[in-house]
């Protein structure tokens, strides 16, 4: 093993325990805030993994979106709920063992598939074809930007409009209405007819 492979293995050896510890912490901490923060650790380590795999755009997107937005939102929601630490004893019922069995079968399946793929892809023919693709000198971000503005312009702009509409639609049910904001005649009419058909008519 030469130096670059050694460094690569070392970095991976740092990141993978981080992911493992973080994910075990997410499911087994009793305090919800602790599990939210360990979820943040998992997302950060996944982003570092993307860096190690030379996918710089995805790594940056993972940091910005998952850690910076989604995890912050989760921590925020957990803090708002302000649940006291629930200390009921965890009984391992039948559901626990069923889920344990199903998950371990899935895990073994994935491990077997990965081993087979590893044998398949590390044959010499594939290595030479892979090296021919010359992936290491491309600029990911520039490529993505070029494609977004040329080939995928319509979905790109539509997604920005979608964000606007989603923002308006999320605020619309959540905000506080003051009743007298409407036209002045409506206020008088609402005094005159505040019976139930009137209320229903605002629905229909």
């Amino acid at each position, binding site marked *: 093993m030469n130096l670059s492979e050694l460094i690569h293995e070392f970095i991976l050896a740092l990141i993978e325990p981080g992911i493992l510890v973080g994910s075990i912490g997410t499911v087994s901490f009793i305090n919800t805030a602790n599990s939210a923060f360990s979820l943040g650790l998992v997302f950060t380590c996944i982003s570092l993994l993307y860096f190690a795999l030379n996918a710089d755009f995805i790594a940056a997107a993972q940091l910005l979106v998952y850690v910076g937005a989604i995890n912050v939102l989760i921590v925020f929601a957990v803090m708002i709920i302000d649940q006291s630490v629930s200390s009921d004893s965890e009984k391992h019922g039948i559901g626990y063992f069923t889920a344990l069995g199903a998950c371990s079968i899935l895990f073994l399946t994935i491990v077997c598939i990965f081993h087979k793929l590893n044998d398949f892809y590390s044959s010499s023919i594939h290595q030479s074809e892979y090296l021919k693709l010359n992936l290491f000198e491309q600029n990911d971000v520039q490529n993505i930007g070029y494609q977004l503005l040329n*080939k995928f312009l*319509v979905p790109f702009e539509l997604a920005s409009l979608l964000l606007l509409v989603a923002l308006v*639609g999320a605020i619309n049910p959540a905000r506080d209405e003051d009743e007298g*904001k409407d036209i002045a005649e409506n206020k008088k009419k609402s005094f005159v007819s505040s019976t139930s058909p009137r209320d229903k008519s605002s*629905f229909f």
Partner: protein
Amino acid sequence: MNDINSFLSRLNSTINFSTILPEIILIVGLITIVITDLVNKGKNAIFLYKIFLISTLVSMGILFYQLISVIAFEDLYTNNIFNNLFRFFILICSFISVLLSVDYVLCSKISLAEFPLFKISAGLGGMILSCATNLITIYVSLEFLALSSCFLSGYTKRDIRSNEASMKFLLMSGASSSSLLYGFSLLYGFSDGQVQLDNIIDKISFSQYLPIICISAAFILAGTAFKLSLFPFHQWTPDVYEGSPTRVVAFFSVTSKVAALSLFTRLFRLIFPYLSNEWHIVVELLAISSMILGNLIAVTQRSFKRMLAYSSISQIGYVMIGILAADLENGYASMLTYTFIYIFMNLGTFARITPFSLRTGTNNIRDYAGLYMKDPVLTFSLVLCLLSLGGIPPLSGFFGKHYLFWHGWKAGLYISVTVALVTSVISIYYYLKIIKLMLTKTTNLVDTLKTYEKQKSLVSSVISTKLKSSVEMAMILCALASTLSGLFMDPIIKITRNTFF
């Protein structure tokens, strides 16, 4: 500056902006609505509706002009007649449903600027969905349509039924679009990274990957059948239709179904032509069960909106026959004709329920008894639209169904057409039940109708005459279209004929 110039020139060479000009006008209308509402600080909300109407009309005009000249447009979407017709249908739906909702302005205590915003965005999503041939554009526009419809259905936030309806709609549309996305991801992966629909069918080798393509077809079917509310995926429809405000139900009962029809047809025609035997059988089964289930359950309904929800499930079952019966000489003519007529029939029926429920505050069918004496115009136009939905001869619903079933019989779908005929007869029962209730004079009037006159005078003093007439204009337009379209059936069929691709 040089970069911007070269970018613009490259942009102009790859994208011909005149093809998406109708959508651009809708986007301009959307931004104008937002800015106008900000400037006006919530007053003068009628002006927003006028902006909406104007932008929809201008869009329709440009689309008309484009319908004459078919421009091919390489990457993002193609403009054949099929796509343009669907865009036109969606613009008609938006236009008429906005006419229905103008009186919402003065009668509700909720802020109103977002209502035309969501309607324009849903119409925009539907229009782009009708011409998208790119997996990513399909998904983004589908989510746009679904999200805007969800916000519309939860618009009256003080009513708990509306909250329940939008919650159900959001969750179920999220689940179904995730299954759609999984089907897309299988296609993307096995066609070596292609996103364009044409390139996918070029690169995928059907013989080698047949099981994967079947799985992908199943997931895509599950995803699109939700929007169409076909049989096992129809459970959201009655609850959402009953819970949402009536104008909103009118809008998305036609718009999302029309957009989902165009998506369904395009996906299954382009990607899975070699599997046509398999998915024909499955879709036939779904259509038969939708027709049977929709019509049988609609018989037992007591609420008008719920009954219309089940009847729209069965109408989509009929339209599925039109999709299955497409062949080389006729294209999708039967499906397109029936969709066109269905838009007017459905919107017309909702146009009559809306003022009735506004005036009496109820949606029960029983409360429609004896309406003939109180409001003959409403009764007569409702009778016309209901008979057209049922398929009674001189009205256009009959001609649409007749052409659909004849086309289906010619294509060999004997079982489906037989089931459709039987269930049509069942549907006539529940439409006629309402008509009989309205037209017979009852000796003891129901309480709601006793207060009908009182409410009418109260409400009409609030609504100015100009606004009241917009709903009536929509009613008359739909009544005329659902009556007379049968007479103009031949030109309509000729236009929709060469749509096979």
